[in-house]
């Protein structure tokens, strides 16, 4: 897939380092599922990780460590090399809108979810995370409607899953990621052709209980 917008390098790096919390990890993984370019970046960052790892001074192992390990591998069952074809084959091919990683998380595709109405033309589904740092939600917005203000008190990573939206900066199509910080004020509007479904991950402390669509409160920061 030829994509124009990606997560910033600091996010990709920390993902490869295993140093981002679950919500950010979900957004990056969803994007990686469709972006070979970012997967290549992750590989480079992991190579960096391997190099740094090999420079760590080792800790002494317990004296019986190797014996234990050899006993354990004798007992361990062989790795099940299981790939769920039903997930990977349907990816982004029209039958399914959510990438496998997201479907795994929310337990179904978009039409199986209990969407909640949160404003004119906007439905939301909160994704359950055990993440104290980030929140993740799916938004489903009708064609031509504004994306509700989801406040930038911190980072906000939006991945388009279907449809597209535009703001002052650019146009974002399926697979694209818009990765913005608190300094960005923008007014995203879903394009006229079709509804837009996206994954939005934000820093946790923001309350989304009282969303007001940007149409009415363009400068409001929640």
């Amino acid at each position, binding site marked *: 897939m030829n994509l124009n917008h990606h997560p*910033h*390098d*600091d996010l990709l*790096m*920390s993902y*490869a*380092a*295993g*140093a*981002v*919390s*679950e919500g950010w*990890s979900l957004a990056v*993984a969803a994007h*990686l599922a*469709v972006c*070979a370019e970012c*997967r*290549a970046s*992750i*590989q*480079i*960052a*992991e*190579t*960096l*990780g*391997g*190099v*740094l*790892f*090999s420079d*760590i*001074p*080792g*800790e002494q*192992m*317990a004296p019986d*460590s*190797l014996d234990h*390990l*050899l006993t*354990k*591998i004798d007992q*361990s069952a*062989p790795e099940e*090399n299981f*790939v*769920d074809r039903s*997930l*990977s084959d349907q*990816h*982004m091919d029209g039958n399914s809108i959510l*990438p*496998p*990683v997201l479907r*795994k998380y929310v337990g179904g595709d978009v039409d199986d979810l209990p969407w909640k109405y949160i404003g004119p033309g906007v439905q939301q589904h909160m994704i359950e995370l*055990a993440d104290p*740092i980030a929140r993740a939600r799916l938004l489903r917005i009708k064609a031509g409607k504004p994306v509700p203000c989801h406040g930038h008190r911190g980072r906000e990573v939006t991945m388009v899953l279907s449809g597209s939206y535009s703001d002052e900066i650019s146009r974002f199509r399926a697979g694209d990621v818009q990765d913005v*910080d608190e300094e960005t004020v923008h007014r995203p509007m879903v394009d006229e052709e079709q509804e837009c479904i996206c994954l939005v991950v934000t820093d946790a402390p923001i309350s989304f209980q009282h969303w007001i669509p940007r149409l009415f409160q363009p400068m409001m920061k929640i």
Partner: protein
Amino acid sequence: MQEVQYINSSYAKHARFSHFATAMLTIQAQNDDMLCRFLTQGKKPEGIRKVPPSENDLLIQVGSTKDREAFSNLFIKLGPRVKAYMMKIGTDPAASEEITQETFIRVWRKAEQFNPEKSSAVTWIFTIARNLRIDRLRKDNKPFLDPDDPVFKPDEAPTPLQNVERSTIVERVKGSIVELPEDQQQVVQLSFIEGLSHQEIADAVGIPLGTVKSRLRLSFVKLRQSLGDLQ
């Protein structure tokens, strides 16, 4: 011991090793010798000892023939580092030991999936250890979303570096880290080894969050530049 002495004397002559270095080398050689004996149940291997196999060679051997000796060697080489890596996030030594064992059980089971054209053994083992460390950190039973999981990789488009020898990439990356300014090296280290989030790095170093991000980005730009002509 004959070949050990031979190796020592030739090294010493060649590199003009100090007495100390020669002594260290002897200890190392003796350890290796003991290890060899241990692994072969006391029987001394025959023939002239060759250059010790690399981590890559060992992992390939484990993958192709389930070679226990190669596996043991790999564990002896990298186990202590995996343990240290686990302890970096405050895990106690006993639990770190346990996760290290778990890491190597995965290495044993998945070794045939290792592809030396796509990864180096150390990087590959690092990613397994990383995934287990995250599981430990999160304690929420949700596994790390591993980009290498085939479920998440539906389109196998060619990547820019796929035809480049892995060892070349590793060497370039090594060189690039050394050349990074110290402040960038520091944030990279805190992220990859200490496992700190951007905010935690900002707090630990006493710099704004934006500076953490920009240092990470700059270091990645340099990393990419160092590989630029290979792509």
